[in-house]
C-alpha cells in the first residue's frame, strides 16, 4: 500500500521534474568528480588497514589495487589522481568497516556518471568493495540493499 508520505514524495518529485519554466536537464556529475570521490574512499580504507594481517591485509591489498585502477581511469579522463590523498591521521583499523561502507556508497553513486570501460570499472568496484565491506562487518551487511547512498 502506498502511504501518504510516499504520495507526497512522488508529488514533490513530479513538481521538481516538471520544472518552473526552462527545460533544463540536470545530468549526473562529471566522471572525474565521482572517480575522485571513489579514489579518496579506497585510499582511506587502505590507510586505516595499514599494519593489519590475515584477511584484513588481503582487503587492504584489494583496496590498493582498486585505487590503482581508479587512478588510471581518472588520469585517462583528464583528472588529477595525485592530489587525492589518504587521511593524515594515524591508521585506525576500527574505522575500516565504516570506510569500506563509504567506499561502496561512493562507487554506487558514481555509476550514472560512468560510461563504456569506466562503467565496467565501476561495476567491478561495486562487486569487490561490497564483498570487502561484508567481510569487515560494515554497517548494512546482510541487508537487501547495501551501498544505498546515504
Amino acid at each position, binding site marked *: 500500500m502506498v502511504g501518504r508520505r510516499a504520495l507526497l514524495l*512522488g508529488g514533490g518529485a*513530479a513538481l521538481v*521534474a516538471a520544472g518552473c519554466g526552462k527545460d533544463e536537464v540536470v545530468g549526473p556529475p562529471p566522471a572525474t568528480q565521482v572517480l575522485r570521490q571513489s579514489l579518496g574512499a579506497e585510499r582511506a580504507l587502505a590507510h586505516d588497514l595499514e599494519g593489519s594481517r590475515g584477511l584484513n591485509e588481503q582487503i587492504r591489498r584489494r583496496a590498493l589495487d582498486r585505487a590503482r585502477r581508479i587512478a588510471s581511469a581518472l588520469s585517462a579522463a583528464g583528472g588529477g589522481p595525485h592530489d587525492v590523498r589518504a587521511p593524515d591521521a594515524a591508521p585506525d583499523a576500527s574505522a575500516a568497516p565504516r570506510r569500506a561502507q563509504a567506499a561502496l556508497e561512493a562507487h554506487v553513486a558514481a555509476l550514472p556518471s560512468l560510461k563504456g570501460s569506466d562503467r565496467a570499472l565501476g561495476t567491478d568496484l*561495486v562487486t569487490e568493495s561490497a564483498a570487502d565491506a561484508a567481510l569487515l562487518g560494515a554497517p548494512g551487511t*546482510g541487508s537487501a540493499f547495501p551501498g544505498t547512498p546515504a
Partner: protein
Amino acid sequence: MRRRDLLLGGAALVLLRPAVAGAATLDHDGNVIKPLIAREEGAEFAYRGAVPDGAPDLGKNAKDHAAALRTQFQALGRGTAPITTADLDAPTRRLAEAGTAAERLDAAIALEASLVADYRRAVEQLSEPGILQTAATILAGHSQQHALLRKLAGRNPF
C-alpha cells in the same frame, strides 16, 4: 526516510523524466530488469527453509529485491506475471532440490555467484539512474552474500 519511500519517489521520477531518458532507453532498461525479477522470485522460493545456518535471511532479501525491481518495472508501464516452479533456472532448482546442509550451502554459493554475474551484466547495460542504482545495490547485496557464504563454507571468500 524508508527505502520504500525512496523507491516510490524514484519510480515517480522514472515516469516523469522522458526528457532525461528517452522511451527507447526506458524500454531497454525494462528489458534488462525483467529477467532479474524472475530470478529473484525463484531465489525467494528456493531459500524457503534452505537458508544456510549463519547466513542472513536470504529469502527475505530476494523478496525485497523482486519487489523493488517490480516497482520500477511497473513505473515503466509494464507488467510481468509471477513465475511458477516450472520457470526455475538451473542454479535455483539445484538449491530447491538440495538434500543436506552441505549441499544447500554449495548450491547457495553457486546461486549467488550466478546472480552476481547477471547483475554485473545488467549494471553495465542500464541507463536510467534510479534503476541503475537500485540494480547496483542489489549487485552489492549478492556480492556480500556470496563472500559470506564462501567464508561460512571455509573457502577463500574472494
